[in-house]
């Protein structure tokens, strides 16, 4: 029972972890609080489901289209919303509110296009499950954990060692100084949002195979991702581990409290964290914008 809860928690936690790493990457690249990340996630998931079911594409093709759709959404957001705002030296608050408004627009457009009903992905999900050590794991859970850990390591290594990764971190820490030393900050921001959006799309594809898709699906995973990014600290592996831990805590809590409170539990974790770390004044846990 406990083992199954831990496994379920790892499955959903790693999925949120992919989303959280994407959010952290976008933030590290100097894009502020990218609330619309939730919308990009939903776009990826719904594109995957729609192309798979309605157009009858193969899974890899549908996945590629979903990733492209998310990346395009992210780049459009950057061109139309973030760059103009950054050009006018908008405040953090303005960036947050505009990103939130963009998310509302994305969610509304998805609702108009697809309707509110939840849609499932049928034949993609490999049937059957793996049994080991008295717990049962679905293929989606196994994929989530494997892909999640893999992506997290790749992103961490990329961010630490490659030239682009370092440029990203430099831009996030001090954009003007980065520009002064010759980093193309606009290009780096585009890179950050594309990287974040690709990760969001992957998380969306895995969610589509797991629980189905609906236009407002982005909000709750995104909020968990933000809490994970806050608690996880500056490094990407920390963010991923935090997300996995939150997932495990949520699923294990089912053993003691009614399931209806499961979603709100992540905010209890946030509340405990904020009360314990009373010196938290900004999202410095992400090691990006405020020192």
């Amino acid at each position: 029972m406990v083992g199954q809860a831990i496994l379920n928690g790892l499955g959903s936690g790693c999925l949120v972890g992919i989303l959280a790493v994407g959010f952290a990457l976008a933030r590290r690249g100097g894009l502020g609080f990218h609330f619309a990340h939730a919308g990009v996630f939903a776009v990826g998931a719904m594109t995957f489901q729609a192309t798979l079911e309605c157009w009858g594409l193969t899974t890899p093709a549908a996945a590629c289209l979903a990733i492209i759709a998310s990346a395009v959404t992210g780049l459009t957001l950057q061109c139309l919303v973030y760059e103009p705002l950054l050009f006018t030296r908008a405040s953090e608050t303005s960036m947050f509110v505009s990103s939130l408004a963009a998310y509302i627009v994305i969610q509304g457009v998805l609702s108009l296009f697809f309707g509110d009903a939840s849609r499932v992905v049928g034949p993609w999900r490999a049937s059957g499950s793996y049994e080991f050590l008295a717990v049962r794991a679905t293929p989606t859970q196994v994929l989530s954990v494997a892909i999640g850990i893999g992506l997290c390591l790749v992103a961490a290594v990329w961010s630490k060692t490659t030239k682009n990764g370092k440029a990203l971190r430099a831009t996030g820490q001090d954009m003007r100084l980065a520009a002064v030393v010759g980093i193309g900050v606009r290009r780096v921001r585009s890179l950050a949002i594309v990287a974040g959006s690709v990760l969001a799309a992957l998380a969306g594809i895995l969610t589509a195979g797991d629980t189905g898709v609906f236009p407002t699906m982005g909000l709750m995973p995104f909020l968990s991702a933000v809490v994970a990014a806050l608690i996880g600290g500056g490094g990407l592996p920390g963010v991923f581990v935090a997300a996995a831990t939150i997932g495990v805590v949520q699923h294990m809590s089912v053993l003691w409290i009614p399931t209806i409170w499961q979603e709100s539990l992540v905010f209890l974790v946030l509340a405990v964290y904020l009360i314990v770390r009373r010196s938290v004044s900004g999202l410095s846990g992400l090691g990006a914008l405020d020192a």
Partner: protein
Amino acid sequence: MDYLAHVLVLIAIYVTLAHSLNLLAGYTGLVSLAHASLAGLGAYTSALVVVRLGAPFSLGVLFGMLVGVVASSMMSVPSQRMRGDLFIFVTFAFQIVLSNILNNWSALTRGPLGLSGIPPPTILGLTIHSPASFAALAGCIAVIAHLVTRQIVGSPLGRILRATRGDDIAAEATGKPVRMTKVIVFAVSAAMAACGGGVYAHYITFIDPASFGVMESVFLLAVVVVGGAGSLGGPVVGASLLIVLPEMLRFVGFPANVAGHLREVSYGGLLLAAIMLRPRGLVGKYGFGG
């Protein structure tokens, strides 16, 4: 005529709510996404106190305001030092949690089924039934909210609020009690929002958790931003505009769910356009620093 009175009631209620958010976001620079849930707290408290305990309308609303103040302190006290986006996120989290509680604590709130049969208010022996008389009541409350805001804004407290909005560290460095001020203004704002929620409950006579969800909070923010933050006229202009326009769309005749989502897209789009192109809104004085 009744329809016109109905629109006026809605405008008056939303002017009250918008003044409450404007006090916090427009004058203190603390954007809150929790105001719909605070209004919901006021609505549910007032409804429950009146329906289950048989208290009069004014006592119900007063109790609702008290609950709103307590709830606001749960947000404002831990977040005294928080800046910018973390503060907004904390209020957003509060909104989600409170929506969840209203939805899931069925024993108290009847969950998604909502509370119905909320009686109309009785003031000084007169029962307020018709939309026209309700418009008068709601209008009075909106005027009181306006006057309270004007009083606060013109007082030394108002100057501390604007100093906090500009640069809270500098304000604190000059010796102003910035953190205590933030808690106080949040409490006043929450009380006003809860009052608006209570009036709403007794007007519509039915409330459910969906009426006080995330979209409502975003709508209130849109009202404040589009109308103009940091000015007394902003909430009035914003509420009037954003209530009247969708009502006019009603006559175009979209199917119900399409109309709902279209409204979502238009609020989001309006808010986005306002923040990007004219952050001061129509008659505002504060552009959220950008």
